[in-house]
């Protein structure tokens, strides 16, 4: 057999074994090429004007290549180790290291560049589809019309060739540093011996769980108004990150072994076949797997966290805008309002005009907010507050000594907690009114631009309002004096109205169109979603593949065990139930802990991103879990193959 034939046969065999590697490679190349194509596409420039789409995609493609690079290098180390025996054999029959390296390189090159070529083809095919997704989620009006970009092709080929260079370098170093003997030994060497569980290990295990719990605790306190944490916010965040990651690592190193050890000890040597294949096998490998599991857990947590947060902001965009801009058009001067209304009349666009009269007062809120609110950077007993009369709101009718708060931003309410009842003092220049606070109402009548970004507005009875208005402290004079809200009667008129609005009225600061703001918000959130979504998917695919490859290796190392067990009379089915348990653990634990981490991460700061946490987070988690499970399922199939051929 000539070397060429050898290469060809190896290539064919590897293709069958490493189909998932080829898939991951295809996936990354295709995605990268699609991203770069978008980046070089002239149609992105149009949309890029406002949202810097091309820049975002460029950042995404750099991150993508970083993830993919690490993945390919890591996968390569796993593969080259698996083939060490084969390499030893070539050395034994007298091939030089250079010859072996050349042979492996040619083989690798075939696999790699074929995938690269196919990946680019797929990438071009899907780039249009990806652009369509982008258009869909950002709501940008553009035509999905892409041309094959030579620049993109060259960039993709260069980048992946550089990665290939690194892979070859690694292979060369690996082959270089092995003697024939080492090559034969490498597989059995990697496993650490397991002995008794020491006291130290128990300590490490407990410490791991404690560190994770501590990290979760601090994360939940991050934005709860604790003065010390607020002051050192950055350090507190670093502390959370460090303690959770370290805790996770110790958890795998110590806690799991320790817990398993306790279970095993309780069994007193009487292990069922399921436990033999799951419990003891996992314990046996825990030491060498701990680092990988920690990395995968952290990466999953990161991916899920980012996905959740970006989805939260995308998901909440509409609600946020409806809170911030209560009418179709929010105009902050009487003249502009009237002018726009007249303009709409001229064009026969039916609309309603709502003018809201407001004033500003000193508010003493210490009784309803509690003293700790001082930490949020305003004076609780003397804060400027917008006041409106209850006649503006149909659903609210108040006595002279009552007040309710409205127009609050949901995000702010997540950090600022009002008591259910209490006394609020509103005062003008000379007079003060002690009012009974009756609670919060979900009513929005003023844009957040007027209410300092979403601070609540106090509603009082009409007479109190007039007294306060007459007594207004000139020092407090608000930036905007009037507010005119205009709502279209027929939403079909929106395009024409938008055009009129942008011709003239929009150039004065503070006048806002809800449609335009919403579009702007959606574009921003959409592009973030898009980028984070695809990066998250890449994280998922690469980490899933790594776990799968690792399991592939493990199953082959355990093959002799399956032979023994089958000789003893255990059926394939018996063994598979054990394997399923083991895979449930191997894939499930990093996932569950990753989900847990990301849940706490999201929970600690989600309110900066939107006003709805549960639904978007749960949706992201479910999708992630479902896609991730595919890899676990595939690994069980691989085990099945190995077990079947074991006897």
């Amino acid at each position: 057999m000539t070397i060429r034939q050898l290469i060809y046969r190896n290539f064919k065999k590897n293709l069958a074994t490493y189909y998932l590697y080829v898939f991951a490679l295809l996936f990354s190349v295709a995605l990268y090429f699609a991203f770069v194509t978008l980046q070089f596409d002239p149609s992105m420039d149009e949309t890029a004007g406002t949202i810097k789409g091309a820049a975002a995609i460029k950042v995404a493609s750099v991150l993508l290549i970083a993830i993919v690079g690490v993945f390919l290098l890591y996968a390569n180390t796993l593969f080259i180790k698996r083939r060490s025996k084969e390499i030893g054999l070539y050395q034994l029959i007298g091939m030089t290291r250079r010859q072996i390296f050349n042979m492996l390189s040619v083989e690798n090159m075939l696999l790699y560049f074929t995938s690269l070529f196919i990946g680019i083809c797929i990438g071009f095919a899907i780039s249009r589809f990806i652009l369509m997704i982008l258009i869909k989620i950002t709501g940008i009006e553009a035509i999905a019309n892409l041309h094959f970009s030579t620049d993109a092709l060259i960039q993709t080929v260069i980048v992946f060739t550089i990665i290939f260079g690194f892979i070859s370098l690694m292979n060369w170093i690996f082959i270089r540093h092995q003697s024939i003997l080492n090559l034969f030994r490498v597989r059995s060497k990697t496993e650490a011996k397991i002995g008794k569980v020491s006291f130290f290990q128990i300590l490490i295990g407990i410490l791991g769980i404690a560190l994770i719990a501590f990290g979760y605790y601090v994360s939940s306190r991050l934005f709860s108004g604790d003065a010390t944490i607020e002051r050192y916010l950055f350090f507190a965040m670093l502390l959370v990150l460090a303690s959770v990651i370290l805790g996770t690592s110790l958890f795998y190193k110590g806690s799991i072994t320790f817990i398993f050890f306790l279970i095993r000890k309780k069994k007193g040597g009487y292990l069922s076949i399921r436990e033999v294949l799951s419990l003891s096998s996992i314990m046996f490998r825990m030491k060498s797997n701990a680092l990988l599991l920690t990395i995968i857990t952290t990466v999953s947590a990161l991916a899920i966290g980012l996905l959740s947060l970006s989805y939260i902001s995308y998901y909440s965009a509409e609600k946020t805008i409806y809170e911030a801009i209560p009418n179709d058009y929010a105009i902050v001067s009487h003249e502009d309002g009237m002018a726009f209304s007249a303009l709409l009349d001229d064009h026969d666009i039916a609309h309603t005009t709502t003018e809201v009269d407001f004033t500003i007062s000193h508010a003493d809120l210490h009784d309803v907010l509690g003293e700790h609110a001082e930490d949020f950077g305003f004076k609780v007993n003397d804060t400027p507050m917008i006041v409106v009369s209850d006649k503006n709101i149909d659903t609210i009718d108040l006595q002279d000594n009552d007040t309710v708060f409205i127009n609050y931003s949901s995000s702010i309410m997540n950090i600022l907690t009002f008591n259910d009842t209490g006394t609020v003092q509103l005062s003008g220049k000379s007079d003060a009114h002690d009012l009974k606070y009756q609670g919060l109402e979900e009513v929005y009548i003023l844009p957040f631009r007027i209410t300092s970004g979403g601070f609540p507005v106090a509603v009082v009875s009409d007479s109190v309002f007039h007294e306060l208005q007459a007594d207004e402290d000139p020092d407090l004079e608000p930036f905007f004096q009037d507010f005119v809200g205009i709502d279209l009667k027929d939403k079909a008129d929106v395009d024409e109205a938008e055009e009129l609005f942008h011709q003239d009225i929009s150039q004065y600061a503070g006048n806002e169109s809800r449609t335009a703001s919403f579009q702007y918000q959606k574009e921003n959130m959409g592009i973030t979603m898009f980028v984070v979504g695809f990066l998250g998917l890449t994280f998922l695919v690469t980490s899933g593949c790594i776990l799968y490859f690792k399991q592939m290796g493990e199953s082959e190392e355990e093959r002799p065990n399956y032979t023994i067990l089958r000789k003893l009379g255990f059926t394939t089915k018996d063994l598979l139930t054990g394997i399923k348990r083991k895979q449930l653990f191997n894939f499930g634990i990093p996932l569950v802990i990753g989900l847990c981490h990301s849940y706490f991460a999201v929970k600690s700061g989600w309110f900066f991103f939107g006003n709805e946490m549960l639904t978007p987070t749960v949706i992201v988690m479910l999708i992630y879990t479902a896609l991730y499970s595919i890899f676990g399922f595939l690994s069980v199939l691989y085990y099945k193959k190995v077990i079947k051929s074991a006897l």
Partner: protein
Amino acid sequence: MTILQAQKIYKSYGNKLNRQEVLKGIDMEVGEGEFISIMGASGSGKTTLLNVLSSIDKVSQGSIQIEGNELTAMKDQQLATFRKKHLGFIFQDYNLLDTLTVKENILLPLTIQKVSKKAANSMFQAIAEELGIYEIKDKYPNEISGGQKQRTSAARAFIHEPSIIFADEPTGALDSKAASDLLNKLSEVNEKRKATIVMVTHDPAAASYSSRVIFIKDGQIYSQLNKGGETRQSFFKDIMKTQGVLGGVHHDN
């Protein structure tokens, strides 16, 4: 009482064009409580014989009955169950699971048989003490010697009191002291527990511990020796003599 009966068993590998006959019509019987050795040169088919007798491999032709159960008629699933309940195995390379302690390895065959934990423990204690491995019960296979490993393997084969124990070159990887220790234990267990043992070996000294030796040559039974009332030493000499006649590469056409 006959516990195993094999009639005219043939085994061949390969396809029609390139057929390699390994077993060519072997008849044998094993009585209850017997300790039988199968001897033969490399390639004579002794391991293949053991594999087909123990249901790990299938015969091409012929019938094998163990306690009246026809092995050749059984499906894979049934065979597995049969092995689990009725057979015990000892292999040259021990075949212990590295991930399990000595005790866990030994108790493995019991876990499928709904034996209570208490009963299992007392069974374990009895067999482990007999084989002198009770002290190392919590050690892992990589922490014990080859002899101890093989005795662990033997204990695993005995613990569920199978009808027959098959041993494939059990002393192959042991030094002479460990080997004679193991064989002494095996014949002790054979006598005490009335355990039936079928052992493949190429070592005449090992074979001399058994009560009957079957010689295989080129896939056929060449001759048999009975120990009868002889001492082990004189039985050993007989075996050596037969092996001398048997050995060598000459081929009778």
